[in-house]
């Protein structure tokens, strides 16, 4: 496929360009987040249109063809995401390359000499390391687990298979890294993309997504038919759950639940996987009651459609406004899903406008590139500071005392033991009443900076996060700002007002254009109510809509003929809170009068 193809051309209309220009001028004086809600909402729309035109770049698919057609592909999601687009069947399927949010010529790694400058280990030690836990007090720990749960639906670069050709980070003499090899820390490279490269890719490296790119619940259902077959009970469409109501143990990875994707496993993921596997089975039961003649396949596939859409809705209208608690954003995210009720705005924007009706049910749109998750999206979702170093387990029963775990004890092979010991309800309650870490510098969990996973070398995830962006050619912070439509900063003081941080950044980086993206995003001053940076938010504005816009099952096929009327009603009438209460009614008191289930719950 050439770099540009007719199906993927998008140009803003004259009106949209004009509005973009007007908002550009307005934003020179007032940023979008200080404008009145409706005007600010349209400001976001102007950003999004510009991003759709300029910030979607195709890197080729990688695999030369889609798998063979299977019966049902026209009305159900395939296991690997192929045939979501019936015209471009490879689009978004597992194994296809990540796309880009910056022009390909800008997405090139530094030369070898510059790639390690400054040392990622120094950044980990001096800038990212948690000095003391800084909580995000408006959120609960379920919000942290949720975003990892969702990213596991969307993306996975694969595990580095070999230490060959690893990056070698020189360690300073006073660095006590225990796994040093001749004075260097080794960081394995991302698994390479070995598919033939298109000549127009230039110096842009490509990597493949091992998950389906779509918002299809792949973390629960898998991105591969073989895995999916393992998970299904073949009984009325249900997923396998044990007699204790929990997902079975994965024989290949003891302590991990057997589910669609169980890498980087910890108790937070286990809770959400169990919750939405139960939800799947509840949807199956309801469908079975309405359509008693349906076989296992019909029930499973319909339930998957409904469950995936419900998770997408929860993410859009509950999780996002929870993390980015700003009235304009709450308005915008609701408009994304439900549309707007204002008659005046409907008249002004026109009946065909996606803002009027919401994206679900609108026409499928790919804008300027075939749909794919992007490397830049991966980068802005590096949110490890959300994870605390300790988990306090509380019980719903008043007479049971709290128990505190080091986080390392509630992850990997230990996960299942914790779940069995404390039970689903108490752990959910514990997550609902604990705060995650704030997404900022100096708050990277210590245990992740020295993480030992089974069968893998000791890892400093903070240094790895820095190295991954550099390896994948993600522009550094200042150029990234420019490329997503924000002005470059001229000095370190413009990046951050965190006391002492500008001086620290200057000391380490010297040149403001060398600040790593992650460091810039974590240092940046945030708009009121925001849990993460406004620069990262630009990618978010684009991609949050795109995950829906490009997906046939959220656009032209988001209709009762595909989902059933029961399915549509299920999506419309349910929320995170109703899902929690359906499966764990004991949480009713803890959730009573809580406006957003991703905010702190009542402590009983």
């Amino acid at each position, binding site marked *: 496929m050439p*770099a540009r193809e007719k199906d993927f051309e998008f140009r803003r209309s004259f009106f949209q360009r004009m509005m973009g220009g007007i908002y550009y001028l307005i934003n020179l004086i007032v940023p979008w987040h200080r404008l009145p809600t409706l005007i600010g909402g349209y400001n976001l729309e102007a950003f999004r249109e510009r991003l759709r035109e300029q910030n979607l770049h195709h890197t080729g698919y990688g695999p030369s063809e889609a798998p063979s057609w299977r019966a049902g592909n026209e009305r159900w999601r395939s296991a690997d995401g192929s045939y979501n687009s019936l015209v471009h069947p490879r689009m978004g399927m597992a194994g296809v390359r990540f796309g880009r949010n910056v022009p390909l010529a800008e997405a090139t790694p530094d030369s070898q000499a510059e790639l390690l400058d400054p040392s990622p280990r120094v950044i980990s030690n001096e800038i990212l390391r948690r000095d003391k836990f800084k909580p995000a007090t408006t959120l609960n720990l379920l919000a942290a687990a949720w975003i990892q749960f969702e990213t596991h639906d969307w993306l996975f670069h694969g595990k580095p298979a070999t230490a060959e050709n690893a990056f070698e980070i020189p360690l300073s003499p006073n660095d006590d890294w225990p796994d040093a090899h001749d004075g260097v820390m080794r960081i394995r490279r991302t698994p390479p993309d070995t598919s033939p490269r298109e000549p127009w890719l230039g110096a842009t490296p490509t990597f493949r997504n091992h998950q389906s790119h779509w918002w299809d619940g792949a973390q629960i259902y898998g991105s591969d038919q073989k895995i999916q077959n393992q998970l299904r009970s073949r009984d009325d469409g249900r997923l396998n759950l044990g007699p204790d109501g929990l997902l079975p143990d994965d024989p290949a990875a003891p302590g991990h639940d057997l589910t669609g994707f169980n890498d980087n496993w910890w108790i937070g993921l286990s809770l959400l996987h169990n919750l939405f596997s139960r939800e799947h089975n509840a949807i199956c039961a309801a469908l079975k009651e309405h359509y008693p003649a349906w076989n296992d396949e019909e029930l499973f596939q319909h339930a998957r459609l409904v469950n995936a859409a419900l998770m997408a809705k929860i993410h859009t209208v509950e999780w996002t406004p929870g993390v980015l608690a700003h009235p304009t954003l709450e308005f915008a995210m609701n408009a994304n899903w439900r549309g707007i009720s204002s008659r005046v705005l409907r008249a002004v924007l026109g009946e065909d406008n996606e803002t009027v009706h919401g994206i679900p049910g609108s026409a499928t749109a790919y804008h300027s590139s075939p749909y794919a998750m992007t490397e830049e999206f991966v980068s802005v979702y590096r949110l490890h500071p959300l994870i605390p170093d300790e988990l306090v387990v509380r019980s719903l029963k008043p007479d049971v005392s709290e128990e505190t775990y080091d986080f390392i004890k509630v992850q990997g092979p230990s996960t299942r033991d914790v779940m069995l010991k404390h039970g689903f309800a108490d752990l959910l309650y514990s997550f609902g009443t604990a705060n995650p870490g704030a997404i900022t510098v100096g708050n990277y969990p210590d245990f992740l900076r020295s993480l030992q996973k089974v069968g893998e070398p000791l890892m400093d995830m903070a240094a790895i996060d820095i190295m991954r962006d550099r390896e994948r050619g993600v522009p550094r912070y200042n150029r990234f700002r420019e490329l997503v439509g924000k002005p470059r900063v001229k000095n370190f003081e413009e990046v951050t007002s965190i006391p002492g941080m500008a001086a620290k950044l200057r000391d380490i980086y010297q040149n403001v254009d060398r600040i790593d993206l992650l460091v810039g995003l974590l240092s940046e001053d945030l708009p009121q109510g925001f849990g993460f940076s406004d620069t990262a938010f630009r990618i978010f504005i684009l991609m949050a809509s795109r995950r829906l816009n490009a997906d046939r099952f959220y656009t032209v096929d988001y209709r009762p003929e595909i989902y059933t009327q029961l399915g549509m009603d299920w999506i419309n009438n349910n929320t995170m809170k109703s899902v929690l209460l359906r499966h764990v009614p004991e949480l009713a008191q803890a959730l009573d009068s809580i406006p957003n289930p991703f905010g702190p719950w009542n402590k009983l």
Partner: protein
Amino acid sequence: MARSINIPGLLRLVIVRSAAEAAEVDEAAGVDRPLSGRGRLINRLIAAKLAPFTTPDGQPWPAFAARLDALRAERQSGLEEALSRSANLLQRLEPEISDLAAFVCDRLPGASVGVIVQQAIGRLFFPDYRATDDSYAAAVTLSTWLSAGPIKSLLLKRSGRFQAALDLVTQDARGNASCAHAIGIALHGIIESVILMQQLASGSDQLHHLSPEEAVAQTLRAPARIIREARDRVQGRHLQLQSRSLILIPVESLRQQSADRGAAFAAGRWNQCPAHAFVPSFLAQVWRVARDSQ
């Protein structure tokens, strides 16, 4: 010391003035050949001017390809390897060399030296390549496009002449970006050298007194200028570059300051011309045949 022209909103340009500065630009991590089309108005206009030099599938011509583009590097070294077999190639180009020698001796009145040079270069890639007046006119149009001011550029664009020229060169190059660059842009330096040879040979006895190597040294010409862009701020030993600065390297002028013949071809650097050895051999052979034919 480099000259910096900084007009807010309009232009951010750095003009390199020494070989050391040019070398630093070549090696700087934040500087590359593809122009982003960002920054100030004239910077964007220049980028827009160079943007069409791609193959139909979007692959940039080699002179505009990124430093770290592995395919560019591979093709560059492949072409260099192919052009290093100069004895064979010069044999293949005997008819064109003979015509050019006749031109140098002023025995080919009315001949278009441009067509002959274009054909010689094209036959390095495809032995059956045939240049015509139209194909050479297309190359002239591309050259005019690169050096034209805004009004002339607009006229070339609106009349369709530029696109037609680009299409013809691309078609003649059969999808080979290196060939397109050679028969569309790079040929002009060689044409200039041959014309200088003719001037050198006429009106005196230079043809017999100068060895081919001396003649080449006197007539070899580099591209007048090339453009780079600093994506990020660069703090080097000789240069301080702001982000999104255009950097103009007056290659020919730097070559004249340098005793090194390789300066015309950036020899020894990552961006060295793959024909850095072949072009001097080719010109020397033209001079040699011209001398022998007298």
